[in-house]
């Protein structure tokens, strides 16, 4: 791994990853715990979300306020979120502070108090957030698009459902913590001004005697392609389109990434050019590659005034069909430069790198050095992209619309 990257799996199954970034004063941590929306208990959608709040309400010897004050006094910039496969905790600051904070995260993950009063509030907040989705048609669209595109349980909304949250008890959530906050399947990554021996020693001390098996993962099934319209009074009709693609580990992965960049990379991308620049049909239009372990998808969005939404959908779909005819050498060259530049610039952010190496390990079981990524991008040829596009037409489409009127589907 050279002296830039570090990878070590503890005996209990937790994987520690490191990236040394010369010139950086800061460090950033990403901690992935195998509790995502996919593995929320069957009648307890939103459990991981409630837990991700509750674990921060006191841990180890500190109650809620003492814990928060302690993390704040270290100046840690913190985040937490629940994704499809993990609950993610992040922190960033001057490097030593992040390392000092690791021990506290050990308490948060392994010894949370999970207090009764905190539970009621955490559940209440989750229900409030859920009620807010209807006020934000764009957010509602993306939630529905995932739900309809991904076969159960991959499309489950991490925010849960009203019914499940209403019935959830502290006992359920405590049991869920005991069954999913486990070392196996957990990934701890640190990037920035760090020393590998030091983080290894810290990780062993903090997490070495943590145990437990990760919850079983579900096999991914191919999305069937479905259509849904959600009636809502809104100024714009919000359109979401998704279709299956290759997983990140597929030999065609970068071929596909290049094609998606041509479709919607920069402002010279086809969707932006045709839908917005030439026709003025919308302000926001995009498509992007999105991955789960073992499968990939492309997801897209456009929002247009209600009387122009049909034209937007038609134009969007026409561009997807036109991809069959292939891309030009100039388009591919721009796609390569764009993706390479953003890969290199990611090297300026400790938070971005801590997140990227954790993602890489989860998807591929190893960290890829930046040079390997650059080489993979460079090796894609026009012939490869065009042969792929000819053989793999985009689809089947899942199309979701949120607005006052359903559209005619292609």
């Amino acid at each position, binding site marked *: 791994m050279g002296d830039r990257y570090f990878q070590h799996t503890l005996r209990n199954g937790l994987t520690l990853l490191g990236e040394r970034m010369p010139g950086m004063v800061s460090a950033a941590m990403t901690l992935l715990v195998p509790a995502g929306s996919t593995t929320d208990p069957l009648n307890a959608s939103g459990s991981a979300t409630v837990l991700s709040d509750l674990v921060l309400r006191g841990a180890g010897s500190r109650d809620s*306020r003492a814990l928060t004050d302690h993390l704040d006094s270290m100046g840690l910039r913190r985040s937490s979120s629940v994704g499809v496969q993990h609950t993610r905790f992040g922190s960033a600051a001057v490097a030593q502070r992040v390392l000092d904070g690791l021990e506290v995260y050990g308490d948060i993950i392994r010894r949370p108090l999970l207090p009764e009063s905190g539970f009621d509030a*955490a559940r209440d907040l989750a229900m*409030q957030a859920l009620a807010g989705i209807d006020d934000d048609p764009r957010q509602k669209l993306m939630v529905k698009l995932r739900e309809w595109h991904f076969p159960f349980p991959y499309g489950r909304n991490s925010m849960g459902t009203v019914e499940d949250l209403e019935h959830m008890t502290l006992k359920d959530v405590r049991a869920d913590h005991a069954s999913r906050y486990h070392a196996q399947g957990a990934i701890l990554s640190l990037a920035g001004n760090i020393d590998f021996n030091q983080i290894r020693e810290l990780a062993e001390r903090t997490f070495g005697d943590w145990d437990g098996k990760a919850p079983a993962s579900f096999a991914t099934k191919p999305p069937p392609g479905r259509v849904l319209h959600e009636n809502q009074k809104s100024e714009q009709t919000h359109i979401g389109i998704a279709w299956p693609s290759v997983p990140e580990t597929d030999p065609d992965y970068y071929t596909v990434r290049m094609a998606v960049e041509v479709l919607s990379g920069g402002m010279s991308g086809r969707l932006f050019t045709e839908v917005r*620049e030439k*026709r003025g049909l919308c*302000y926001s239009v995009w498509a992007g590659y999105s991955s789960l372990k073992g499968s990939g998808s492309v997801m897209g969005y456009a929002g247009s005034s209600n009387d122009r939404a049909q034209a937007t959908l038609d134009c969007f779909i026409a561009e997807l069909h036109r991809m069959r005819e292939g891309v030009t050498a100039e388009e591919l060259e721009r796609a390569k430069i764009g993706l390479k530049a953003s890969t290199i610039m990611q090297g*300026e952010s400790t938070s971005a790198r801590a997140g990227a190496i954790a993602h890489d390990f989860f998807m591929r079981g190893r960290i890829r050095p930046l040079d390997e990524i650059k080489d993979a991008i460079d090796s894609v040829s026009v012939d490869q992209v065009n042969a792929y596009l000819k053989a793999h037409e985009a689809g089947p489409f899942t199309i979701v619309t949120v607005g006052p009127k359903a559209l005619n589907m292609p």
Partner: protein
Amino acid sequence: MPLTFHYKQLPNGLDIVAEQNPDAHSIALGLFVKTGSRDEDQSVNGVSHFLEHMMFKGSSRYTWQDVNRIFDEIGAKYNAFTSQEMTGYYANVLPEFTERALEHLSHLLRPAIRDEDFNTEKKVILEEIAMYLDDPGHRLYEKLMAAHFGSHPLSMSILGSPQSIQKLQRDQMARYFQQRYGPGNMVLSVTGQFDFDQIVKLAEKYCGSWPHVDAPRQQPMPTHKTQRIDMTDEKLNRQYTMAMMPGPSAQDDRRFAAHVLADVVGDSDGSRLYWALVDNAIAEEADFGFYPHDGCGSFYLALTTDPARTEQAMKIALAELEKAKNDITDDEVERARNKIASGLVLQGEIPLGRMRSIGGQWIYNREYRSLEQDMATLNAVTPQSLKQLMRDFTFDPMTIVSLGPGEKSR
């Protein structure tokens, strides 16, 4: 992270401010203009933002296709923004593309404003306005600024209204451009990896012929009154409430204390409002912050709640503001300073963030502040400075605007 500051003024009056970071992997370049919706009058409301879009539509040499293509050919992360007081155009590229990026930005800032492009882009602006109408937070903010600033120019909407945009003529825009977009009213901000002599040469080559403009800004003192406005939209589930009060300006030395106060009282985690309102789920979000403007400033309070809990939440929030006037502790101030300091360190490592900060600072104050200066000023803030700040700015008068479903659903 040894950062070095450089400054040069070209003969035509163009200011160049640059912060060199030899450890950076990229260079960020931005042209900032001291103009925004507050410099418009009603007959051209929205022109600064519309013009921001037109800058991407080509110069005498380039078409809009060229503009988008060239940015993508150099793998740039690029964008633009418009506020009430400033517009900015920027690109973040790998160092080998420095000249092309600056040349290209210089074309952006000399727009052709062709009729055909103007008419197409008008539709995009109208879509952007429609998109924001589907966002209750944005509707609330626009109403708040309009009500709080009354006849003061800061009340002007950044986007304009559908009516003002429909009526706007190409020649009005061209006149606005000629009056305000030139050296004397703009700055070139550069951060990251570069050679400053080369930057000066390139700026001379590509921007050296731009005519100087004299674009004074009107600085009436705002007058405020205590008022409350309730807006009803039956389709909403949640209640969105904001209050605005006078605060220090962007030129006022008390602005540093104001930032610390905003963190102590209203940070999303661990602040007084967090413990009083979010920890117990009375509010889903409770935020207190500080907006420094040119010549005046504002504090704001923002709450997202169940409609039935709004009044209770507001009462608690206002009581917290009163209480803060007398009992802020050393520990609270220290925690806030540590959090803000971490943010500064992380920002300093990323050229794009630093470029915006330095360019903005120059537009407001014609002043460069190093990270060390900011840290030192921050460390000098004490509970006593916060107490004095709240004697000077007493959160009175207060404009309150609330948007929600109305009585029916409560």
